[in-house]
């Protein structure tokens, strides 16, 4: 039996934890929250309405990205193609617009000779996969002391936004790797 993490099924389990559990601080240091029933009541109402949403399938598109990624993955390991070498690995997140709320989803970036993969390790999930041939250009935003966001603009007009503390290093790694791609003519690299 595999644990279920799909938020459509486990939302209540998650909220039980976020609202009622976790690290506690001496009451005199924090603003009183636990003692104010007001919040609990309001949050419970919010949960009830989430449950209603779940019932009526409003959140159905949450799994779109997951389904998409499942078709791209082989469980528990990166499926590298013949002769495809792993170049480097970074920790960061990708901006995902599908789902309940657009949000940043964390994972590990794997830079190979052919593509960028963003992997959530447990449970295994491919959050993003981009072949260098698809890339129109790379731009960096707010790169400050190495940290910031990287934007990968695809030829289809699609945009992938990544955020990580080693943004400039990853950019260099990708650009170097792209230099080795078979069809460099189709790739435009911005400095």
């Amino acid at each position: 039996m595999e644990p279920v993490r799909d938020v459509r099924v486990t939302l209540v389990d998650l909220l039980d934890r976020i609202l009622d559990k976790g690290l506690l601080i001496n009451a005199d240091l924090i603003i009183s929250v636990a003692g104010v029933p007001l919040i609990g009541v309001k949050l419970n109402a919010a949960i009830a309405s989430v449950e209603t949403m779940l019932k009526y399938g409003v959140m159905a598109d949450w799994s779109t990205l997951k389904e998409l990624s499942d078709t791209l993955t082989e469980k528990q390991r990166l499926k590298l193609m013949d002769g495809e070498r792993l170049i480097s690995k970074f920790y960061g997140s990708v901006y995902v617009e599908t789902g309940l709320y657009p949000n940043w989803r964390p994972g590990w970036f794997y830079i190979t000779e052919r593509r960028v993969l963003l992997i959530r390790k447990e449970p295994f999930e491919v959050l993003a996969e981009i072949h260098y041939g698809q890339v129109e250009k790379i731009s960096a935003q707010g790169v400050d002391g190495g940290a910031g966001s990287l934007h990968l603009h695809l030829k289809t007009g699609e945009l992938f936004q990544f955020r990580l503390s080693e943004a400039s290093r990853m950019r260099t790694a990708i650009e170097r790797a792209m230099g080795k791609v078979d069809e460099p003519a189709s790739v435009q690299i911005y400095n």
Partner: protein
Amino acid sequence: MNDSVAIVCDKEKDVEDEGRYLYCVVEMGEKRIFSKFGVDEEDVYTIPYGDISGVVHRCLPKPYQSDDHELVKKWLFQHQQVVGFFFEGYDAVLPFPFDTIIKGGNADADEKVRNWLKEEYSNLRRKMEKVRGKQEFGVQIFWYPRSITDELKNESVEAQRMLNEIASKPRGVAYMYEQKLKDVMKKELEAKAEKYSQEFYSIIRSHVDDVKIEKIPKADGDKQMIMNLSCLISKDRVQELGRELDKINTIPNISVRFTGPWPAYSFMT
């Protein structure tokens, strides 16, 4: 956006007006900033003390609260998003519940957080060691009392005897026997639940690192929860537990719900 909500952090204001919203304590001693990452798109940053850090954002010393359910839900997801980010990347993460805000008072609020980390250092370290490399999972076991009762009726000699009595007695007397039978079955059902609970608990207990027994919510329809556990498990033992739960799940009229992984929210006390 609701104007009763603490959303603005004005740098010009007195330090007394400041608070720090706390997400988690993480094993990492560097200052990092994650822009527009937190609850209400606030900039999240780390406040290091030695080799550990508090993950926070600047805010007013007021709880986040609103009548707008959509907004509250969004905040909850944003809170989890930040905790989840550190949970994925670091081995020992201590999560705070939603809306934990430290008061700045007269001191610099960052300093308050740092002082707290300093005072609690050994305690926090101990908690980190406890959860290092481990994840929390929910295990809930349900049964179908009606089907189980039918099963028990067939198995129980006493129930069979009473059923025969009912069939042979006039209506009024039969009614009394039926009530009696109900009482007997209720007791049998309770005994069965007790037996199952002990059995499942001891199996699960031997395949996890720690376990907390949680409250059982009210029954919803035919399906009833008989056991609600939060389990702390080393990453390499998750499959092992999964296999045991599979076995329990194959018992007729029993179903198992296995959720996670979560940051170790239930193992912070």
